[in-house]
């Protein structure tokens, strides 16, 4: 009998496991380093204010109401723009997903117009609709429209064929197949498209406000730069980041409740 040797374990690793504290530590360390660099005078405050200065600026803006004024102005453009673009985009996208003729008619036009950076259309829209709110809302709506069309019709395509055949085999009328199979089956893809279109809306509102607006976060950031108020400028950027996070969190909630079956 020779000596028994245990089989060495070699199957560990390569399985992502949650590490809840690590992200917070990374944040804390980065901000701490930044603050240290500012406090020691390594970073000139005019070009890179300290985190504390940005927080102070945010707090002051909150107290005197300017913050909410600008956020509200931006939301008044994002919300109607996103809703109009999404409603129109879903209407065309679902039609293209369901009817071959709608797809044949719509696809070439959508493919041709999709790559245009929609902010380039703002001057044209200002010419047509004036410098006020409608041109900005229309820019956002256009920017939201195209990705929504594409996500809606590809989502329809991703509905398994066998489910549609099953429904046909049970004699479901076409209307019911759309309502009970195609739409719920396309829902994950449509909601994923909402994330994209929401970030497009945020991007476009800032750009549009930088081109011509008195109020709104984009206008605020631009003014802060013109006055070299770097702390306010970065406070505006932080507000944008928070806004983006809130939108994404809200969509996550919607996804979890609509797609509970997944």
């Amino acid at each position, binding site marked *: 009998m020779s000596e028994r040797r245990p089989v060495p374990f070699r199957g560990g690793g390569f399985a992502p496991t949650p590490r809840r504290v690590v992200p917070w530590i990374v944040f804390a360390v980065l901000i701490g380093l930044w603050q240290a660099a500012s406090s020691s005078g390594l970073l000139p405050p005019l070009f890179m204010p300290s985190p504390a200065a940005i927080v102070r600026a945010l707090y002051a803006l909150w107290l005197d109401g300017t913050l909410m004024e600008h956020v509200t102005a931006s939301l008044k453009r994002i919300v109607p723009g996103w809703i109009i673009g999404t409603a129109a985009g879903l209407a065309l996208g679902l039609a293209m997903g369901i009817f071959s003729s709608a797809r044949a008619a719509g696809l070439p036009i959508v493919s041709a117009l999709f790559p245009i950076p929609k902010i380039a259309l703002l001057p044209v829209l200002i010419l047509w609709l004036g410098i006020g709110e409608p041109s900005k809302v229309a820019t956002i709506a256009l920017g939201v429209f195209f990705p929504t069309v594409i996500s809606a019709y590809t989502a329809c395509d991703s509905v398994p064929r066998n489910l549609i055949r099953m429904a*046909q*085999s049970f*004699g479901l009328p076409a209307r019911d197949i759309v309502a009970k199979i195609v739409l719920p089956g396309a829902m994950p893809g449509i909601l994923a498209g909402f994330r994209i279109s929401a970030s497009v809306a945020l991007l476009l509102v800032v750009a549009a406000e930088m081109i011509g607006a008195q109020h709104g976060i984009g206008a605020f950031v631009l003014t802060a730069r013109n006055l070299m108020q770097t702390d306010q400028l970065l406070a505006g950027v932080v507000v944008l980041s928070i806004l983006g996070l809130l939108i994404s969190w809200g969509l996550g909630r919607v996804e979890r409740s609509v797609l509970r*079956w997944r």
Partner: protein
Amino acid sequence: MPLHIEKVSHSYGAVEALKDIDLDIADGETVVLIGPSGCGKSTLLGIIGGLLEPTAGRVSLSGPPPADSLNPFTYIFQDFALLPWRSVAANVALALEHRGLGAAECRERVAAALALTSLAEFAAAYPKQLSGGMRQRVGIARALVVRPAVLLLDEPLSALDAQTRELLMEDLLAIWAREKSTRVYVTHNLEEAARLADRVVVLSRRPGCIRKVLRIDVPVAERGRLEHAALLIDVHRRLWSLIRDEAATAEREMLDV
């Protein structure tokens, strides 16, 4: 219902899938279609239930379907084809909702079908929470709820493991002993054929045509008995000798993709 398949042929473009299939199926009979892959057995099943239009020939029932049958030709699918966003009860109800029944009658029928497939306690569960066997039971309940005249089973047990398959075969036999329907069952599993069929129809490879029809005289209910074990082994062996060479050819064929 007696079912008649007359001179049915089908081609996918230039590829001939089925050629001149003639088959009469008696009322209440279970016919199992077997054959090597690519023999067109699933195509034939699709044609029987009106999901595919044959290039030539026709399928007909003798007389009108029974009045209480909501969906005379009803399928049970290999991949179950359940809606993941609907509960078990709602998946079964899908087959009824557009039939203009009252809500109470719908509920009653669904409950009866779930009871018949021992799913009553899973009515509120979602498909992803169920094992493969339970999912196929939902598929079976959904088919029974419309009282089919002809039940079309497209490899219903192929996606299941061997033990689950055995259990579901027992379930199917128990249900069939009570429910009157004519059944066409496609499989590549010879044991299922020997256990479930009144007649086994062996199809040949592309273009699929009927190579042999084998009647098994022992009633299906008695086939589990020891005294018939030799018979079942013999059926299995005869079926295998009929399709073995073609199955080998099919298996060595390059896939056209």
